[in-house]
């Protein structure tokens, strides 16, 4: 196992999970798992590692520097097409949590109208940016980079930007704006997000570990969905920049995205082949990847 983790004193298996951002509600289940001792009960000693905006999680997992990390389904398929052996084992967000946020004062009725005037801030090169560009064209708008910062949005009434539909609208509203959100699912883009990834080699060699980790994480998320307050308090301690109120609001906002999209699905985090196949088709059509075997890209332990 990578990371040089020595077995914990009490014989539990150490396992590290690399996040791609600092403690936030989108990681609430992991901290909840620690709080309720789910890892201990599964014989694990879970180490949740915070990250930053440029954290190269996919490469780190692929290169074996760490065994588990947080990514998204589209990134898994892209990485696999580039030769990296990544497999998704758990998906937190069953519904894609990103969208485009505009000022409701513009009275826009659809995503298409967003691309008819003004400025749109997105991260260039992401699949949904490609999709929107292909669907609506960027010839009537000014496309600029998204930098996590709301100031340009607040400053410019004709500004639209990508957003985590759970987070930015709340912040914008608090700053006095009246945002309107178009989820990307509107245009049929709905990959699993908040996906835990590992290498297929890890699954083959250590299926028990993978199973235990997924069980731990699932218990954590169940606990977090039931009552996020304790985990929020812990995450607020670690990341005091986000206040408790925001934690609570975001946790509430993300709940429907985490709940299984299909009511027949009983368990949190389980993934379905059709969704992966649909995504693979989308990405191939967009020209982002040229081949995919979606059935190898995920694994429900």
């Amino acid at each position, binding site marked *: 196992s990578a990371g040089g983790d020595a077995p914990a004193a009490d014989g539990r298996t150490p396992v590290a999970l690399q996040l791609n951002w600092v403690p936030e509600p989108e990681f609430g289940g992991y901290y909840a798992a620690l709080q309720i001792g789910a890892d201990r009960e599964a014989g694990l000693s879970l180490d949740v590692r915070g990250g930053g905006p440029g954290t190269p999680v*996919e*490469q780190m997992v*692929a*290169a074996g520097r760490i065994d588990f990390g947080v990514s998204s389904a589209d*990134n898994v398929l*892209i*990485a696999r097409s*580039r*030769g*990296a052996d990544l497999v998704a084992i758990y998906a937190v967000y069953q519904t894609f949590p990103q969208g485009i946020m505009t000022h409701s004062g513009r009275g826009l009725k659809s995503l298409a109208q967003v691309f008819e005037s003004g*400025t749109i801030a997105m*991260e*260039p*090169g*992401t699949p949904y940016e490609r999709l929107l560009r292909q669907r609506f064209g*960027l*010839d009537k*708008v*000014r*496309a*600029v*980079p998204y*930098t996590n*910062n709301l*100031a*340009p949005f607040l*400053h410019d009434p004709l500004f639209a930007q990508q957003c985590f539909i759970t987070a930015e609208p709340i912040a914008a509203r608090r700053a006095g704006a009246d945002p309107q959100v178009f989820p990307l699912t509107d245009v049929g883009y709905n990959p699993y997000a908040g996906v835990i990834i590992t290498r297929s080699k890890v699954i083959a060699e250590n299926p028990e570990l993978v199973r235990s980790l997924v069980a731990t994480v699932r218990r954590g998320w169940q606990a977090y969905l039931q009552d996020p307050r304790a985990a929020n308090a812990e995450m607020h301690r670690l990341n005091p920049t986000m206040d408790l109120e925001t934690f609570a609001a975001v946790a509430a906002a993300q709940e429907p995205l985490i709940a299984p999209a299909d009511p027949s699905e009983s368990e949190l985090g389980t993934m379905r082949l059709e969704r992966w196949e649909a995504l693979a088709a989308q990405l191939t059509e967009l020209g*982002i990847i040229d081949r995919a075997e979606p059935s190898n890209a995920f694994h429900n332990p």
Partner: protein
Amino acid sequence: MTHGSRLSAIVPPLVSLLVIGAGLELALLATATPTYLMPRPSVVLSALADNAGELSRATLQTALAASLGLVFSAVFGGTIAVVLSMHPWVRRAFYPYAVFFQTVPVVAIAPMLVIWFGYGIRAITAAAFIVSVFPIIANTLSGLLSTDPALCDLFRIYRAGRLATLLKLRLPSSIPHFLTGLRIASGLAVIGAIVGEFVADTYQAGGGIGTAIEVAIKEQKTDKVFAAVLMASLLGLGFFALVNLASFLSMRHWHVSETKE
């Protein structure tokens, strides 16, 4: 530079390029390093060829902002150094602000950049300027403060005004330092423009190298990331070569660093 120097200026870098390139290629092959971590030079080159049109357009765009930023840095950095050189008190009072400019990450002031300068080339130029101005200030200032005291005495004897002393003594004698600052600034202007593009590029019809890098990172095309970085380096090298040319032309008669070679 002596006669026949053109050849000797070209051969060593070519040889080292070939040796290092081949060495890297073999090392990466031998260790079976996957492309998504670090692409082999040959892979980078083919990515460069595959994206030649897009990358050269991006490079041109970045080159414009970077060179504008560099020019501003040279002009304003030089001017600020002149002002700072006037008195120790001025230095103590205002030099610290230059350090502030140097240590502020562009992402932190991105909103101000785009709101003051608008998205696009103006904000990107501003970023290139902010990132590249300090070496010009620091080097020119140290040159201005190192003026031969005997020559200063000479100018005092002739009651040369501040301006005349500046133009005819202090500035010429700080040329070598200024050019070293410019050498450093030329690479920083490129990186500044790239970072500026990360936060302010208007990319609806393509973008600069910065956007190309962002896109390639998002698409996990490491070979294309490196191809774009290579273009950035070539741009930096181009500026660097221009500075070296300016250095040779302005100092070939009188400064050791150019007369010795």
